[in-house]
């Protein structure tokens, strides 16, 4: 009986300590982000000034993998063609879409087949045809056999002309100055190999002619939860790690890479869902092993807007895929953890990800289940149970609130008082139910990874109604 009590006691303390450590870790990242954002804020007024190009900015190839994106592809490509940057090209990769994606592209941009000497630096599925726009000299389209997002990105890399490649999701809207901002670290520091930009939720915003014209909050509660989630994930999750060069994720929705490093690393892995994270972790592992100085940086300015899922099923599937991607990325790169030259990525970021992001759902959900069981069975007091819930939810709310504070300190994208109030309410609400639901989805993701179910693009149900103002839709 005594041993039984000890076991129950140990599990209780373990779960409590885990929650405190998890949230404490994020709070430390929060502090690191505060410092970076403060400095960034001091330079913000320089961003408002007219920009002079010297012509020596590194040219960029924007890669847009597209699979069944007929609803949004025209507006997205149009927004990319109007970016303010000295030299860039847009390469749309139609990954064997079953809808009218290619037809929309042909019609909107006047595509014609082009005799291109395609370079096969990374192995990909077969290319059917290469097209070039008759209206925009810097737009090309690759039509290929279906092979997944990673395969499409690799095909884009093969066909790209420029030393920097920028992967952008086909349903995303970029701000006009987004390329300038996200390539800035490459200008400052020749050792930078990858940068990632901030992604914001576009639901509730207005887009006209491929540009975001009015920022708003979504009315849909699922999308609203994700607004706060994105603030937290980007403003301190990534910025914090970036400030100590330990960032293990550059979002596939908007990231820039030095092409030679990507090719040297072997390109994106087509057999994984989380190809964006896997590539970054692999880059860390290889460059650390070679003792090559490098940096992976995060650019906190809001630069890319994307449509978040608005229904339960799509959101659930997305989160399951994300967790599978995370598990695949970490399990494929164990070699980085505690490696001799691992530095911050190997000794801090990887173990942190493993302990809190990968194993997190098991411990979190296990913790909740155990606590409910133990208190119902009389194994622990209601006081212990309520203390556990109090700490877990209280720290969660604190973290979400700190994300909101960082946003208010830096960009204050949502200018109206009502919007701030709504976000404040979401900060409280998302910790009671939504966060736990997310944990369940992540656990399913882990299960699917463990049982090795087949990985696919994962269809996203898109409304695209926030792009209603695009000329292409008329």
């Amino acid at each position, binding site marked *: 009986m005594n041993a039984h*009590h*000890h076991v*129950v*006691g*140990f599990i*209780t*303390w373990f779960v*409590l300590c885990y929650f*405190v450590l998890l*949230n404490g870790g994020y709070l430390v990242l929060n502090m690191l982000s505060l410092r970076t954002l403060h400095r960034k804020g*001091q*330079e913000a*007024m*320089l961003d*408002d*000034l*007219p920009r*002079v*190009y*010297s*012509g*020596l*900015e590194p040219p960029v190839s924007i890669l847009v993998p597209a699979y069944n994106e007929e609803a949004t592809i025209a507006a997205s490509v149009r927004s990319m063609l109007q970016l303010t940057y000295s030299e860039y090209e847009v390469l749309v990769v139609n990954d064997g879409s079953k809808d009218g994606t290619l037809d929309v592209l042909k019609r909107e941009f006047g595509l014609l087949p*082009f*005799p*291109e*000497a395609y*370079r096969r630096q990374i192995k990909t599925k077969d290319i059917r045809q290469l097209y070039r726009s*008759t209206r925009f*000299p810097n737009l090309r389209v690759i039509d290929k056999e279906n092979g997944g997002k990673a395969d499409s990105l690799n095909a884009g890399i093969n066909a790209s002309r420029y030393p920097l490649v920028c992967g952008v999701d086909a349903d995303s809207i970029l701000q006009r100055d987004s390329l300038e901002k996200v390539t800035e670290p490459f*200008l*400052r*520091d020749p050792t930078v190999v990858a940068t990632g930009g901030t992604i914001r939720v576009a639901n509730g915003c207005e887009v006209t002619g491929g540009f975001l014209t009015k920022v708003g909050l979504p009315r849909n509660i699922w999308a609203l939860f994700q607004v706060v989630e994105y603030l937290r994930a980007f403003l301190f999750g990534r910025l914090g790690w970036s400030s100590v060069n330990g960032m293990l994720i550059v979002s596939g929705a908007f990231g820039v890479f030095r092409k030679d490093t990507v090719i040297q690393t072997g390109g994106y892995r087509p057999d994984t869902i989380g190809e964006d994270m896997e590539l970054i972790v692999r880059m860390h592992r290889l460059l650390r092993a070679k003792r090559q100085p490098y940096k992976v940086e995060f650019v906190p300015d809001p630069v890319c807007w994307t449509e978040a899922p608005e229904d339960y099923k799509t959101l659930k599937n997305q989160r399951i895929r994300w967790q599978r991607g995370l598990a695949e990325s970490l399990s494929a790169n164990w070699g980085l953890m505690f490696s001799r030259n691992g530095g911050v990525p190997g000794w801090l970021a990887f173990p942190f990800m493993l302990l809190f992001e990968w194993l997190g759902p098991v411990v979190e959900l296990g913790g909740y289940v155990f606590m409910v069981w133990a208190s119902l069975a*009389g*194994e*622990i*007091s*209601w*006081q*212990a*149970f*309520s*203390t*556990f819930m*109090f*700490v877990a939810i*209280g*720290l969660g*709310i*604190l973290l979400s*609130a*700190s994300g*909101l*504070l960082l946003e*208010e*300190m830096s960009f*204050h994208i949502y200018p109206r*008082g009502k919007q*701030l109030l709504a976000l*404040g309410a979401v900060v409280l609400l998302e910790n009671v139910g939504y966060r736990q639901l997310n944990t369940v989805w992540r656990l399913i993701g882990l299960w699917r990874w463990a049982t090795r179910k087949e990985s696919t693009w994962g269809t996203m149900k898109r409304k695209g109604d926030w792009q209603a103002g695009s000329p292409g839709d008329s």
Partner: protein
Amino acid sequence: MALPTGALPAHALAAAFRAPDDPILAAAYWTGIGALLLTLLLAAQIIRLRMALRRHERREARALARWRPVLNAAIVGETPDFLPRLPKSERLHFIKLWVHLQASLRGEAGLALNAVARRLGVDHDARAMLARGARTERLLATLLLGHLGDRASWDTLRTLAGSPDVTLSLSALWALVRIDPHAAAGYLTPLFVERDDWAMSHVAGILKEASAPVAGVLADLLPSLAPERLPRAMRIAEALRIDLPPALLEQALASADIGLVTGALRVVATPGLRDRVRGLLAHGDWQVRVLAAKALGRIGDASDVDRLAGLLGDREWWVRYRAAQALVDLPWLGRADLDALHASLSDRFAADILAQVIAETRSTEAP
């Protein structure tokens, strides 16, 4: 370590609000209380920030409403005789607006804005900000004093130019170039060659306004530069389209240092160096071959067609591509010549790349 058990749900609420006796449970309880208090503090801070932002926006709107018409009038040559007083609370907003307008203007309009700034004594304020202000104020002051061409701030700007803060140092350098391009070129050019932390695109952007004096300084500097600094100096010369002495380029092209050879190939423009460039078409490093093909496109003669055609079969895609571009750009090769050359190619890679470049060129030509 054993936990108290068996409490009924009816008592749970009361128990939940009491600090537990168990030390570890108490620690967790106080952690939760701490989180709650911190959350309240954060909420208060968010509200305070939002209110401060609103105040700031109102002040800025007031300042813009007052000063935009004055500055717009000055831009069109109608500066009022009497200017309103510039309160301290509006100073930064005014400077920001002024700098923004200055950055978009050229010529007399800029001079009129300078006159307004001087009449309001903003130059004095900016000098004070430069010496003692916060980082944001210093950044703004460098821009304002640069546009004003303020010689009085030369020494302070020079000190700031040596700062390890890249943004601040580059702003100060830009101001120095604006104030006196000749004096700045003498001081800055060696610095630009030395400091790798200054991005080349920024360097080129700043030096564009002083390219003539920089060319002179660079020419004097090059012979004494250490070999490892030469490639960067050549990149500056390339960015500013400065012609470098052929003797120096010839020496660089003969070097074993790849960085030096590629640096020289980027800027070589004299037919006298043709033979040196031809010798590099078979270089082991593909980047040298790429740049040699490009250079031969600029300075080659009719005899180079075969050499460039030979490169169309290179194992590196970029070499093939640049060789094809060089061929297509040769003024003495017409459409028919190019088509004939294409038809004569037996190597599939060579034929594909030439077909691509021909198609690229024709797609940009007027129908």
